[in-house]
């Protein structure tokens, strides 16, 4: 492999491991006070009255009336309020902030505030919602005819649950206001998203708003939209208080009121003729929660992937995102993909069994390859290296032999093994990069020949700083220590776009590579120089038609093949995860070790999504699993064997052949896990997470 994938010590290793790195809650700032948010305790209603106790000196209340601009937080649409507009729409919605010096006093004030509501009946079940935020659909071929001519029609419903990010560092932000300028700093993926949100809420022009990213303790999509809301809230508070205001959520608050992966209900039909799949008809409903946040784009991505990695001649896909009185859902690694990929992967297993085929054989029969027409009538432009990946995966996991071996087991413990094949489209959907983001990067060469990278890209642990430094250093042909990269500050960096959608390396990395080439060309030692690069859309793509969902939604995809093996205890329903394996194509891995770290971490999250990460709400819309002892994520002991590998399949227009990586491993873990449970139990399953209780229920049902 190339020099680029040789691993180096991570750029931020030393400050993080020694505890010196400052995350937002670690900052000590002169005159700073704290803010704590009063949140709705009901899922739907109108606020009739708020009774505030007499406040001690130095304490104040911040609410909608203190907002200088609009009470709308700009995300994709602008419906999320900064502070409640007099209605409450989910348990946890922010009503007001109490600001002051002593956290214990703030807690006391919060406990003494009385909110009188007129309660409305909340809509908690997505299938009962009649408010449709977004609705899309597309067709390929003639599915109606295929269904008419079918000799067998399969019809199944799949459901997927919430997934909570559990970034180890909770959300937190500090607001400042001085001389008519709002500054907000804290834990965020997308400084320029926060920038536009604060601008609108504060009613300020571009240059009067400054956003700074601090060290980020994980995000996984969870700090894509929510920081815009919290950022706007502290900005308003800081102006009123006349002092810096820090608001760091506590864990229960964070789990209750920040975005999660959308629960989904997906109805799939397959037309079968002569044991062949002649059409797929899919209908997906995504539960958006009370406000739209990022649901529009999440739903789009989910629908685009609804038929998975397979090519069918006739397809109909429809879907809607609906409003419920629950916490607004948003971005989570995979961004709408894990739901529909779960459905199609399980559906393919079930179709196979229904027509008497081996699931893998059936999948292989329809596996997409270079030159195939995609579901949206785009084109698979590049090699799809599944054959190589699957060979590797089978060798590591022993899938084919074990799958046969685990049929018809008896006894207290039973083993099972499952497979999933998925992709993740790299970058923003459609023409977003060209029309909306228009990313810009800058390289600034100092007199001493050090070069500073200026982008809005944020490092949330995924290794962005290291990767960017490697790309620039190698392109320039200078040692890495000559490169400077700091956390972005919108006063200093151009808008290279959000750190999301597995775009940073592929898109921003490419811009940096081009900037470095340019700088190298004009390089004059001991002189200050600066170069700037702007996004250029790859020419080979078939233009994306957002209206009709036609064309190439992504310039390329990253591909994954996953296997999970389980052993269930039939007395308790407990499933031990024997192992999880994944083989991935992320183009040329820019730093192999970092990429493997991403794959391992993502796969473990995805296995959690399929198995133990259960979150539900009671009939009042209150999330019950709002603590780390109640919302269960895997420990080091839960998946004792976790093996991932990558293949080298350079992406021609990526920097050093790299393409999107971060989200890919989050897509295939759940379907592989539930497929393993199917293999152990010998029945078809339709939902995730598949819990211990579900397993025992299935076993008891089989006894009868």
């Amino acid at each position, binding site marked *: 492999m190339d020099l680029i994938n040789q691993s180096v010590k991570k750029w931020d290793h030393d400050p993080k491991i020694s505890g010196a790195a400052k995350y937002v809650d670690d900052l000590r700032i002169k005159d700073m006070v704290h803010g704590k948010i009063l949140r709705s305790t009901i899922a739907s209603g109108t606020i009739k009255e708020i009774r505030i106790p007499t406040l001690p000196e130095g304490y104040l209340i911040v609410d909608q009336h203190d907002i200088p601009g609009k009470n709308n937080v700009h995300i994709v649409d602008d419906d999320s309020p900064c502070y409640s507009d007099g209605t409450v729409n989910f348990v946890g919605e922010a009503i007001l902030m109490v600001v002051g010096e002593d956290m214990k006093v703030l807690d006391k004030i919060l406990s003494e505030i009385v909110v009188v509501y007129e309660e409305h009946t909340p809509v908690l079940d997505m299938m009962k919602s009649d408010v449709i935020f977004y609705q899309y659909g597309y067709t390929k071929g003639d599915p109606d005819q295929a269904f008419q001519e079918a000799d067998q029609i399969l019809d199944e419903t799949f459901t997927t649950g919430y997934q909570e990010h559990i970034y*180890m560092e909770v959300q937190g932000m500090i607001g400042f206001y001085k001389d008519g300028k709002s500054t907000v700093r804290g834990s965020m993926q997308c400084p320029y998203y926060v920038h536009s949100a604060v601008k609108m809420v504060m009613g300020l022009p571009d240059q009067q708003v400054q956003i700074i990213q601090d060290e980020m303790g994980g995000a996984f999509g969870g700090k894509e939209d929510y920081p815009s809301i919290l950022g706007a809230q502290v900005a308003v508070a800081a102006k009123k208080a006349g002092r810096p205001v820090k608001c760091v959520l506590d*864990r229960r608050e964070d789990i209750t009121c920040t975005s999660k992966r959308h629960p989904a209900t997906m109805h799939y039909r397959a037309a079968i003729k002569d044991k062949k799949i002649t059409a797929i008809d899919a209908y997906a409903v995504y539960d958006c929660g009370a406000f739209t946040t990022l649901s529009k784009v999440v739903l789009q991505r989910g629908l685009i992937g609804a038929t998975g990695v397979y090519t069918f001649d006739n397809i109909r896909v429809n879907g809607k995102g609906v409003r419920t009185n629950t916490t607004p859902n948003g971005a989570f690694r995979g961004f709408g993909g894990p739901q529909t990929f779960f459905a199609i992967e399980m559906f393919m297993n079930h179709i196979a069994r229904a027509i008497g085929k081996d699931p893998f054989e059936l999948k292989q029969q329809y596996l997409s390859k270079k030159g195939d027409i995609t579901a949206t009538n785009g084109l698979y432009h590049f090699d799809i290296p599944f054959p190589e990946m699957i060979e590797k995966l089978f060798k590591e996991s022993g899938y084919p032999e074990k799958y046969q071996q685990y049929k018809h087991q008896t006894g207290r413990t039973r083993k099972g093994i499952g497979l999933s094949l998925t992709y993740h489209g790299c970058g923003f959907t459609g023409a977003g990069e060209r029309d909306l983001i228009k990313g810009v990067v800058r390289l600034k060469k100092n007199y001493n020949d050090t070069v500073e990278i200026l982008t809005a890209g944020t490092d949330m642990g995924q290794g962005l700083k290291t990767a960017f430094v490697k790309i620039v250093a190698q392109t320039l042909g200078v040692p890495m220590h000559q490169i400077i990269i700091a956390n972005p500050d919108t006063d200093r960096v151009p808008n290279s776009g959000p750190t999301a959608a597995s775009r940073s390396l592929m898109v921003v990395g490419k811009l940096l590579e081009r900037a470095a080439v340019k700088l190298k060309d004009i390089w004059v030692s001991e002189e200050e120089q600066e170069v700037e690069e702007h996004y250029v859309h790859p020419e080979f793509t078939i233009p994306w038609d957002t209206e009709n969902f036609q064309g190439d939604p992504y310039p390329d995809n990253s591909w994954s093949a996953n296997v999970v093996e389980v052993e269930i205890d039939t007395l308790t329903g407990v499933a031990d995860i024997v192992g999880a394996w994944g083989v991935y194509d992320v183009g040329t891995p820019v730093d192999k070790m970092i990429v493997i770290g991403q794959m391992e971490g993502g796969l473990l999250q995805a296995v959690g999504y399929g198995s133990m990460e259960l979150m539900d709400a009671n009939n009042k819309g209150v999330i019950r699993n709002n603590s780390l002892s109640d919302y269960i994520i895997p420990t080091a002991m839960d998946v004792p064997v976790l093996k991932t590998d990558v293949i080298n399949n350079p992406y021609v227009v990526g920097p050093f052949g790299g393409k999107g990586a971060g989200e890919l491993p989050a897509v295939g873990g759940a379907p592989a896990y539930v497929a393993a449970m199917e293999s152990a139990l010998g029945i078809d399953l339709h939902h995730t997470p598949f819990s211990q209780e579900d397993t025992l229920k299935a076993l008891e049902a089989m006894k009868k």
Partner: protein
Amino acid sequence: MSGKITFILNNEKVESNGKPSDRLLDVLRNEFELTGVKCGCKEGECGACSVLIDGVLANSCVVALGSIHNCHVTTIEGYSKTKRFEVLSKAYANFSAVQCGFCIPGMVLASEALLSHNPHPTEAEIREGISGNLCRCTGYNAIVHAIQKAAEEGNGLW
């Protein structure tokens, strides 16, 4: 005798102005400004606030200040000045085991607590040793491998 809670913090005798019922975590972060001790949950469930108390791993969020009177408390700030830390840090770097970094100070102290009792742990023992420290980034493999490597490289140090 009445007075203040005193203890040995990173090898230095200190006196706290905190109440006996205060969380050690808050005392360390706020009074002593040792912000390498992270807060992830405040209920002993994540290990981000791990410290060593008399050489034993503890979640400082569920330790009352009054319970550590006259004890030795080591945080990452103190531990990072040791030879053992150097070996662990290098091993963590070798496997790119530090991602977001929020769990890492606690994870390093859990590694120390494990190796100080069991210098040559098996993989299963390592997984158990760090089982109280949640990490959402790495999938744990890189950390497990780093501890294995540190155990080899640091032969004799533990």
